[in-house]
């Protein structure tokens, strides 16, 4: 049965884009729910402006009860949302729950997918809109779209790219979601799947001076969410001392005379250099 209404749950710019897409098609939006917020809520502002009901709910039990109470056929759009839908909610026959994930599933299921895409030096990542399944990020795929990973991109910038692509793709698939004419495909089990917990950090958050510059630079970019404290500052153990990494910069090497990577530490700065590039890492 086609949905009679839409509920959007998420935080940041993506649920706003989804709401705008729905309103542009005169889709009845029963409400928007923010399940997490750092005090910046464009979704709350947009709901106020467009007269859509908004609620900020951090309590998982209340959210579950709310979704369990719904009887009208509802498309639930989970758009950058940290609430994990329990099995009992997903078994409510009135609900069709779809979710955005910021990778090409089954690659990098779980949290901080852009981090893992960069750290593992994937050349391609992307976005997935999929049906929500009790197993996290394991539901059937509605649509995927690839994004080429730039060799200098940080986790923050890649996250933003995935959000922009996800918004555009949602607008494209919305008519088929509303008419229930879309088709799903099971997640490919090609051996490349992986799952990352929120507490998991690449290499335990420790920089390895023995890495190639390419891997070292990927590690630093993978943990770089600007001033968002998604992870603690990367650590460095060098010559018997422990350091926190506070910044980094890569530049072309002045001379191509080196055969292997050279490592030097001076004035709180670790310098890695090979034939092509020099990576300067500030420590404290």
């Amino acid at each position, binding site marked *: 049965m086609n949905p009679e209404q839409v509920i959007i749950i998420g935080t940041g710019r993506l649920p706003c884009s989804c709401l705008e897409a729905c309103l542009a098609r005169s889709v009845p939006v029963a409400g928007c729910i923010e399940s997490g917020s750092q005090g910046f809520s464009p979704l709350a*502002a947009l709901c106020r402006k467009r007269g859509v009901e908004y609620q900020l709910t951090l309590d998982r039990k209340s959210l579950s009860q709310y979704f369990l109470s719904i009887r009208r056929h509802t498309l639930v759009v989970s758009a950058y949302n940290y609430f994990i839908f329990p099995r009992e909610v997903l078994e409510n026959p009135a609900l069709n729950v779809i979710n955005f994930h910021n990778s090409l599933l089954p690659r990098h299921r779980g949290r901080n997918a852009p981090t893992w895409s960069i750290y593992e030096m994937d050349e391609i990542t992307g976005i997935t809109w999929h049906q929500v399944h009790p197993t996290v990020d394991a539901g059937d795929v509605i649509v995927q779209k690839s994004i080429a990973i730039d060799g200098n991109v940080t986790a923050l910038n890649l996250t*933003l790219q995935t959000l922009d692509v996800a918004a555009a793709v949602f607008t494209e698939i919305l008519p088929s979601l509303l008419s229930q004419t879309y088709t799903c495909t099971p997640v490919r089990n090609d051996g490349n799947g992986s799952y990352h917990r929120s507490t998991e950090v690449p290499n335990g958050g420790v920089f390895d001076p023995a890495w190639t510059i390419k891997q070292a630079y990927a590690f630093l970019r993978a943990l770089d969410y*600007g*001033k968002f404290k998604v992870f603690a500052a990367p650590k460095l153990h060098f010559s018997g001392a422990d350091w926190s990494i506070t910044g980094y910069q890569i530049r072309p090497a002045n001379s191509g005379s080196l055969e292997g990577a050279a490592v030097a530490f001076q004035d709180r700065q670790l310098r890695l250099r090979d034939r092509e590039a020099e990576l300067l890492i500030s420590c404290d």
Partner: protein
Amino acid sequence: MTDYLSNTALNDIFAILKTIRPELDFSQSKDFIGEGLLDSFDVVTLVSALDKKYGVSIPGTEIVPDNFKNLEAIETLLRKSGAKL
């Protein structure tokens, strides 16, 4: 709202905001956060750009809505962080 900011600083901050959200008109807003013009990702991107532009390091603890609600708030934050405007 912009009495204390030089035109150059004003234009620089507007230019940075425009880079981050080109589709929005910040000059017409009195409350960038309350009106939903910036989300947390935008603010972190703005902070990085301000750090670079003004040679400061705005502490992560200062990334709160009140410090980014308008140009005056951003100016106060920059001065507090040591920027010469």
